[in-house]
């Protein structure tokens, strides 16, 4: 038998949809076949549980592992980097019938995914308040900054996804009267660890504009359009302190 024929049949049998073939049936009939089948599925589920800890906390381990098994069958990993497995789990949960009673689950999953992406992203030097202070007068509006490679931000229109997410992440009790409105989050990695803070609509609009390469003046305008009452100086300080921004053109940088 050709090696590729063996691997086509064996991999299909592992995933439970093998064609009828005597040689495959002979393998599947052995007790040892289940060891491989269980290990493959367990590897996927364990990775998802590690990468979506807040979702798991919200729904409990049994429910989570059942949902993760369904996701793993639908979207198995493409490579061995299981630390990065599970992009798309948020969309999967949005369409997963048993999750219909937890409409915020998908948005919470998006924040777990933001954490993973932030954790694994490239290193770069963030600009800080000193950078801003050292710019020549009149140059800042035309300068552009880009989001730090590790910065991730999200806005959830319908639910306080960030409030739910960070209370669970931090092991805090949820407030008795949680304001049931949309909220936003910013995750950054100014040093080794991923940190998070709330982000306003204005902050989301500003970072979106920076990601498009727009100059700071335009990005600031977008922020004020999104949320006219914004104190832009405070927003900017918060973003700089979070390490959310980096220089677009490294030749003009102050990296102190």
């Amino acid at each position: 038998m050709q090696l590729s024929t063996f691997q086509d049949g064996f991999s299909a049998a592992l995933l439970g949809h093998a064609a009828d073939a005597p040689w495959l049936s002979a393998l599947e009939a052995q007790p040892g076949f289940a060891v491989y089948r269980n290990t493959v599925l367990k590897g996927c589920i364990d990775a998802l549980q590690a990468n979506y800890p807040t979702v798991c906390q919200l729904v409990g381990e049994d429910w989570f592992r059942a949902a993760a098994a369904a996701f793993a069958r639908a979207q198995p990993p493409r490579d061995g980097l299981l630390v990065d497995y599970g992009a798309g789990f948020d969309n999967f949960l949005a369409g997963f019938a048993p999750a219909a009673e937890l409409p915020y689950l998908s948005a919470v999953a998006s924040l777990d995914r933001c954490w993973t992406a932030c954790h694994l992203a490239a290193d770069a030097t963030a600009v800080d308040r000193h950078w801003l202070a050292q710019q020549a007068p009149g140059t800042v509006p035309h300068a552009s900054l880009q989001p730090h490679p590790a910065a991730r931000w999200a806005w959830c229109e319908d639910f306080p996804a960030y409030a739910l997410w960070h209370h669970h992440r931090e092991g805090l009790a949820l407030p008795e009267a949680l304001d049931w409105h949309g909220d936003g989050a910013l995750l950054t990695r100014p040093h080794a660890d991923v940190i998070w803070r709330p982000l306003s609509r204005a902050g989301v609009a500003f970072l979106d504009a920076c990601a498009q390469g727009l100059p700071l003046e335009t990005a600031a305008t977008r922020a004020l359009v999104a949320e006219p009452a914004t104190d832009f100086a405070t927003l900017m300080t918060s973003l700089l302190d979070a390490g959310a921004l980096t220089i677009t053109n490294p030749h003009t940088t102050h990296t102190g």
Partner: protein
Amino acid sequence: MASPLTAGLGLKPQHYDEALRCTAPGLWWEVHPENYLADGGPRLAWLEAIRSRHPVALHGVSLSLAADAPPDEAHLARLAALARRIEPAIISEHLAWSTWRGQYLPDLLPFPRTHAALHRIAGNIDRTQDVLQRPIAIENPTHYLHIDGHDWAETDFLAELVRRTGCTLLLDVNNVYISANNLGFSAQAYLEAFPLHAVAEIHLAGHHADPVHGNALLIDSHDAPIAPAVWALYEQVMARTGPAPTLIERDDQLPTFNELLAERERAHRALTHTQPREVACS
């Protein structure tokens, strides 16, 4: 040439701080490179910190050398970049496949050891070694299935891979013990036929019996101390090979760091013929 490595341990994130501080002589650490193929961030920083104080080996699980396809070039390039950064003492992979037609199956899967498979795998090892610019060590896998159609005994297959590619071997003694048990062959006879001259590293680990089938089906679970029978086989191998870098794998049911270190000390003593010593590291 005497190896500076004696007994090492699999590096677990839970033990980073203790691992970093530990000064046990000859200690080294092994990691799965897949967990560190990040673009940046704390994982790489942790590994570089460990590497600044200890030798590190990269033990891959997803190169899928026994797939009937060339290794993924993007994965190879990332592995090579990590190797340049970490300068590992040893890079190893398995005689197994795990990625097939763009899908990763997180296990080390078996195949019929045919002439064609030998040709394909030798080519895949060649390609890997070309990219990494160094030999890699190939590990004997754990077996759970009787598969028809082998042209080669596993020990001969491995010896031929060594001859064709210049690779070295990683002898996992626990895998030999489990496979012999599950498939009904003699572990002693397997080890007698094993090309020990090419062994660059030895693995030891614990296993457990399948909950349904009991001792007839042992599982390579890495979740228990090394079994006495595996220690006995290891000591027999050592008597023939002389000291070889030995790594204890523990991936589940993690004990305290000092318990792992005590188990590691037994291998270290076997390698150095030294007397028992205090092993606590703080």
